[in-house]
């Protein structure tokens, strides 16, 4: 680990030159991320403004007259040149408010505080299901390649990968909610539990535990389990296929045969040698799957009346509401950049060669 430390950050008592080098490196990294995000925002903004959608209509309604239109048009600053509008958005962004969302009438920041935790909660439960099922499935399929188990895993994976979530969601609701009554229906909570716990994180599973309300926790759990399973199922399909192919590649290597010849048991080889070697690639795959879940899943959110990020972004886009859209795009950008950095870090921890 010593090597990592000298390149990554100055340890106590190191020369000022090393510190400067690190600062430069970090500065360059931050600048490149900032430029990427700014470029992303500019591209989205100018493309969005080219859409033939008039954001004023979301506020005043379709039948309003010219005077109302002109008043709101000016209030929104749409009479200003595009670069001024863009600058205003950047300025609002710096204050952390992102301006007003036209199609909800709230501050974008307030909206995001509401919709993003809902999506993080759903995405996190989904990825736990996706990883918990996908990795073991993929490993088993690789180890027992060509067996019935492999075929079953492939079939289940293919089904998860190719069925539209919208359809799966409705079918899931019909079966597990309407017919069997195992889970709760659309929404995040039953009406009688709404506003029973104070939002701290905005994630109901956590907030209900913090507030010591087990009933609310179970209600939230029975609401999240179905949409999370459906989203988790598609992640699982992807993760298990990737795990399988990574494992197959490793298992065909000579060092595996060598280890087996030396008398190591099959599963010891799989676990100790092959699996460790695929960990790095797997982490990237999982991080990507998680990032896609965090973007929000508009169709699943629609079917399950889940007030999440995906639907928020889509509604904003359809109303031509650039404040909301840009804030969402920025968050997605940060998620991808952040997860990239995180998996880079994990690489360094997991792969001794990068140290």
């Amino acid at each position, binding site marked *: 680990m010593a090597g990592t430390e000298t390149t990554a950050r100055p340890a106590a008592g190191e020369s000022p030159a090393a510190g400067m080098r690190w600062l430069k490196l970090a500065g360059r990294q931050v600048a490149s991320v900032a430029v990427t995000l700014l470029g992303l925002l500019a591209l989205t903004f100018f493309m969005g403004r080219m*859409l*033939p*959608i*008039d954001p004023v*209509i*979301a*506020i*005043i*309604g*379709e*039948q*309003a*007259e*010219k005077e*109302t*239109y002109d*008043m709101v048009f000016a209030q929104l600053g749409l009479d200003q040149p595009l670069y001024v509008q863009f600058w205003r958005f950047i300025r609002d962004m710096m204050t952390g408010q992102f301006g007003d969302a036209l*199609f*909800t*009438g709230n501050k974008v920041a307030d*909206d995001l505080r509401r*919709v993003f935790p809902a999506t993080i909660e759903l995405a996190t439960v989904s990825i736990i*299901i996706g990883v*918990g*099922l996908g*990795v*073991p*499935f993929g490993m*088993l399929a690789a180890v027992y390649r060509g067996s019935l188990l492999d075929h079953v895993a492939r079939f289940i994976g293919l089904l998860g990968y190719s069925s539209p979530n919208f359809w799966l969601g409705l079918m899931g*609701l019909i079966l597990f*909610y*309407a017919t*069997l009554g*195992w*889970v709760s*229906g*659309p*929404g995040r909570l*039953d*009406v009688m539990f*709404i506003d029973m716990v104070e939002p701290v994180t905005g994630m109901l599973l956590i907030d209900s535990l913090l507030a010591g309300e087990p009933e609310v926790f*179970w*209600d939230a*759990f*029975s609401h999240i*389990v*179905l949409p999370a*399973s459906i989203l988790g199922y598609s992640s699982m399909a992807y993760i298990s296929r990737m795990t399988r192919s990574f494992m197959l590649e490793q298992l065909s290597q000579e060092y595996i045969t060598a280890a087996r010849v030396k008398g190591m*048991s099959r*599963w*010891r080889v*799989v676990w100790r040698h092959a699996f460790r070697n695929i960990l790095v690639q797997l982490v990237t795959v999982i991080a990507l799957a998680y990032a896609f879940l965090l973007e929000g899943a508009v169709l699943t959110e*629609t079917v399950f*009346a889940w*007030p999440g990020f995906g*639907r*928020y972004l889509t509604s904003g886009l*359809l*109303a*031509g509401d650039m404040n909301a859209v840009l804030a969402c795009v920025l968050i997605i950008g940060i998620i991808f950049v952040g997860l990239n950095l995180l998996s880079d870090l994990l690489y360094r921890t997991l792969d001794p060669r990068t140290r």
Partner: protein
Amino acid sequence: MPTTVRAAFAATLLSAGLLSGAAAIAPQAQATTPRDALVMAWNLDALITFDPAQIAEVNGNDIIRNVCEPLVNYDLTDVSKILPNTAASWSVSDDGLIITLKLRPDLQFPSGKKATAYDAEWSMHRVIHLGFGNSANFTQWGFSRDNAAETIKATDDTTLVVTLAKPYPIGLILSAMFASGSTGIMDKEEGLKNARVTDGKSDFGNAFFKTAPICVGAYRVTRWNTNEVVILERNENYWGEKAKLRRVIIRHVPESGAQRLLLEKGDIDVARLLNTDDLRALAKNPAIHVETTVMHGYAYLAFNGGDPILGKPLVREAFRYLIDYEGLGKTILEYQGNPRASLVPEGAFGALDIKEGQPFKLDLAKARALITEAGFPDGFTKKYIVSANNIAPIVAQHIQANAAKIGIKLELEQMADANLFTRARSRDFEVLQIGWGAGYPDADSMISRHAVNPDNRPEARLAQYPSWRSSWQDEKVNEMAEDARMERDPAKRIAMYHEIQRYMMKNGPMAYIYQTVRPIAVRKEVKGFAMTPFNVVYRTAGK
């Protein structure tokens, strides 16, 4: 079995257990809604405010009429009749210019504070001063920011004196202005106290009332979580018969299939957003009944009058023979609409009767003859824009198919509603299929916007007039409409509106396809849920 395999299997089972585990451990109460609450599912996407001065969409309007009641109200059985509400009576001066409204003396806000004519006066002034779309409820009758203080005046706690610019028929003014959502009585004191002033301009409490308007009505808004839920609580100080149910909970459920399942399961009492397939299935369910209301709204085709081909009345007339009104009515329009070709909706004051209001039928030979007479025997090609939502694209394909049979090639382009509205408002279309809702149940509502066009110049930008959007103007119609608007003899006024409708069916820039229908599916345990095209009354609903 080695431990690693066991671990792998354990992880698998654990994850799988999440789903089925929910069944075993999560306590599942039998789905029923609370006894003292009405639970309704709807799509609350468009809701951006509860300030009655600003609300410009259907859902907010539906809710606010239960929270901020207008001075007078439509008769639940016949909306062309007006009944007293917070105003107990009214009288008109002999010259027809001064209307004196007597408010009930027992009006209270939910807090128990007395509500007076001074609150009513301020509430109407603020709608005019704020200048959102709803200000048209006043400005179209000559009220303005400059004259509001003199023309809408409280003279004591229960008397409101309104001076008109012209002696409009009282029936029209009651229906169009006093029964509109813009005459709800709001708390002046709270509004003034909480008004925000920017650059010397007051917002009249617009931001303050956004989430919780303080109004005279059967319910009050106590909670609004954007895109999640709206909760109304009964106003215990309501002047009339108090609401039967203590709470109304409106849940945001944007998908029809999900609403249907919730309703069937009993997790909601009322479903407000259902597609035809789900409605058909629910209608067969003995625990549920589907109620339909014929709305004062339309789906129609608009033609760009500035187009060299579509500008010809004969061509537009031909399109009316390309719509299979009867066939549509029997198929696609089930639970969605009633075929109608006249621009005044059935049920409105001055509307043609059902038969005369829809004289057209699919007649390809006639349509071909009309375009031949217009000089286009081989047909032509036009772009046709339409919403991608609901049944709109299916209706469009139907018209496209019929048009193709006589050589008219229509190139369909589907788009999001906001996009379609933008195109319509900027005259950027050849053939447009779109919707429109009348503001009040009087022929004047549609005619004053769809037939009248005060200024056809592009720079006039009168996008609130679909006639302007279609670049269509007819001085004769402008005059006829103005005359009818001023006619104080109801029988004569009706006759004048009939004439305008007949004229427009022949010459107008639109082809009306159907009058919209609002289907609502309600569980049978809910009784007394009353509705008209302009109100859905939550107060009378009980279990």
